[in-house]
């Protein structure tokens, strides 16, 4: 067992007992990155010098007895989180040289508790994608099979956990961007309720859907990280002011009295046979742990992907208007007037998927089409939310697959954007409903690819999620499998 193999809670115990130092743990992760990242490409930038300095500072804190669960723990962040003085690109050429003047609140909270930043992780450009293939800095490869995508958009965050390059990472989830890569890479990914975690300093994609969450080796680490980043932030007016419980108190190994719904619309024909088998096994496990299952219906599921791609692209077209070559980011070298400068800077800086989504969103918001597309989608969103609220009147949790198939091959879906969008069919409805969900390792395909299980709870039901996910994890042990690298 190497130091880079340890979870947050395991490393914390060793740091507390002074069996190891944060510098040693950080060096172990940096060496691991050095040894594996040429193949995985999870990192856009590695901040070795700063990391070792932060680790030395953490060791001084620990020597004084000032130790917290996160003190001295080496972490890495999706390159969508602003990090003061550390280049933040959002995997786009338009921000290739951007050095943020401030920190994202979620990162600042971890930094203040003594966490160490190893570097910034690859993703789809501006979080737009399901495969990490839209990054301007090359695709990240799935540590379980290098010819496969790691999932997206937080593909680097998932791959770094699976490759054991970082103890844990943060990602963001707009339509499944934490849960789907976690599922494809065999780690735990938690998408909190909309408003649970501050988005201040997180580069915006679709503001009515974006949420920050942990990506970890096990459920205990997810509970620790969520507890550290959750809570109201005066700098994000959409963060909700409700108390943050100690999520570790929900780490209980049984499911007695828990009622779990199986949405009929998620167990469809065309679901991959290995995924289906993993779900059946998961249901049997949960039943043995004391859970009761009932069938429920989310009748508007089939409309979620269309709704999402109208709303998310419309919001993106507005959010990405800020990249105009004036205050930060790329500016064209070609001469011309102001309008030409805007148009050329944006054309040179953005990649194809980002342009496509800006175009689609601008169209959906444009005069004459607003009611037919954007307003219609907002109304269907209401119907989708009501489906979930009705289901949660009858059950505590929903159990579904995270994705219809295990990780697909690199290049398999790049030519057909619609097919790519449909790979998020089981995760998107949760973002539209604004509620919380977790992806937990639940099996392996015949070809050796991880399969994730999604649990969904009512808004602010993260304790229920963590309890069920922990009980399942402890009963099965799928999270202990390691990708050979």
């Amino acid at each position, binding site marked *: 067992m190497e130091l880079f193999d340890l979870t947050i809670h395991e490393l914390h115990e060793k740091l507390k007992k002074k069996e190891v130092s944060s510098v040693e743990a950080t060096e172990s992760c940096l060496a691991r990155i050095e040894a594996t990242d040429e193949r995985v490409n999870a990192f856009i930038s590695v901040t070795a010098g700063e990391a070792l300095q932060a680790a030395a500072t953490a060791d001084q804190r620990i020597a004084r007895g000032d130790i917290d669960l996160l003190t001295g723990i080496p972490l890495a962040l999706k390159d969508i989180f602003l990090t003061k003085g550390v280049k933040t690109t959002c995997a786009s050429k338009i921000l290739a040289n951007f050095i943020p003047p401030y920190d994202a609140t979620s990162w600042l909270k971890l930094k203040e508790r003594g966490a160490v930043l190893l570097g910034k992780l690859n993703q789809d450009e501006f979080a737009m994608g399901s495969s990490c293939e839209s990054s301007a800095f090359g695709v990240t490869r799935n540590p379980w099979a290098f010819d496969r995508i790691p999932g997206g958009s937080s593909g680097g965050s998932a791959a770094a956990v699976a490759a054991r390059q970082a103890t844990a990472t943060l990602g963001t989830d707009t339509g499944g961007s934490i849960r789907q890569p976690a599922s494809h890479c065999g780690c735990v990914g938690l998408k909190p309720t909309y408003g649970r975690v501050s988005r201040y300093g997180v580069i915006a994609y679709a503001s009515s859907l974006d949420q920050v969450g942990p990506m970890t080796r096990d459920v205990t680490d997810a509970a620790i990280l969520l507890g550290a980043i959750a809570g109201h932030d005066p700098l994000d007016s959409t963060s909700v002011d409700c108390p943050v419980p100690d999520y570790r108190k929900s780490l209980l190994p049984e499911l007695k009295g828990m009622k779990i719904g199986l949405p009929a619309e998620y167990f469809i024909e065309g679901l991959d046979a290995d995924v289906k088998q993993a779900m059946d096994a998961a249901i049997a496990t949960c039943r043995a742990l004391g859970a009761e299952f009932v069938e429920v219906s989310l009748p508007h599921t089939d409309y979620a992907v269309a709704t999402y791609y109208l709303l998310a692209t419309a919001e993106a077209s507005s959010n990405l208007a800020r990249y105009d070559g004036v205050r930060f980011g790329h500016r064209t070298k070609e001469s*011309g007037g102001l309008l030409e400068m805007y148009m050329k800077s944006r054309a040179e800086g953005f990649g194809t998927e980002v342009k496509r989504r800006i175009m689609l969103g601008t169209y959906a918001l444009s005069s004459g089409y607003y009611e037919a597309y954007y307003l219609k989608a907002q109304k269907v969103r209401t119907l989708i*939310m009501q489906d979930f609220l009705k289901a949660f009147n009858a059950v505590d949790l929903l159990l579904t697959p995270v994705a219809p198939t295990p990780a697909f091959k690199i290049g398999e879906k790049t030519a057909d954007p619609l097919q790519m969008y449909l790979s998020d069919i089981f995760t998107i409805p949760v973002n539209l409903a604004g509620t919380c969900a977790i992806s937990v390792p639940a099996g392996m395909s015949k070809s050796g690819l991880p399969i994730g299980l999604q649990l969904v709870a009512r808004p602010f039901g993260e304790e229920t999620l963590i309890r069920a996910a922990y009980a399942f994890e402890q009963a099965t042990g799928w999270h202990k499998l390691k990708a050979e690298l």
Partner: protein
Amino acid sequence: MKITRKQVEHVALLARLKLGEDEIATFTGQMDAILAYADKLNELDTDGIVPTAHAVPMENAFRPDEVSPSIGVENALENAPEKADGFFKVPKVIE
């Protein structure tokens, strides 16, 4: 066809994107396919349904209007592609 080449050119101008010939052609076909897929929303009767703009019911979030420190001119200009005399510099706007 849901969308024509001419509409794509118009939307590109609205979005401030200078697209190449090949991009216009590709996007016309792809946007057409995606919008045709989105048409399935018309299967649903949404008369009288209140649109959702925000997942969490929330009124305007007010805070006291108090002076607090900001990042300052120097930091704000740090990432500017061009700057002069404490300002962002852009190509000439008025002839």
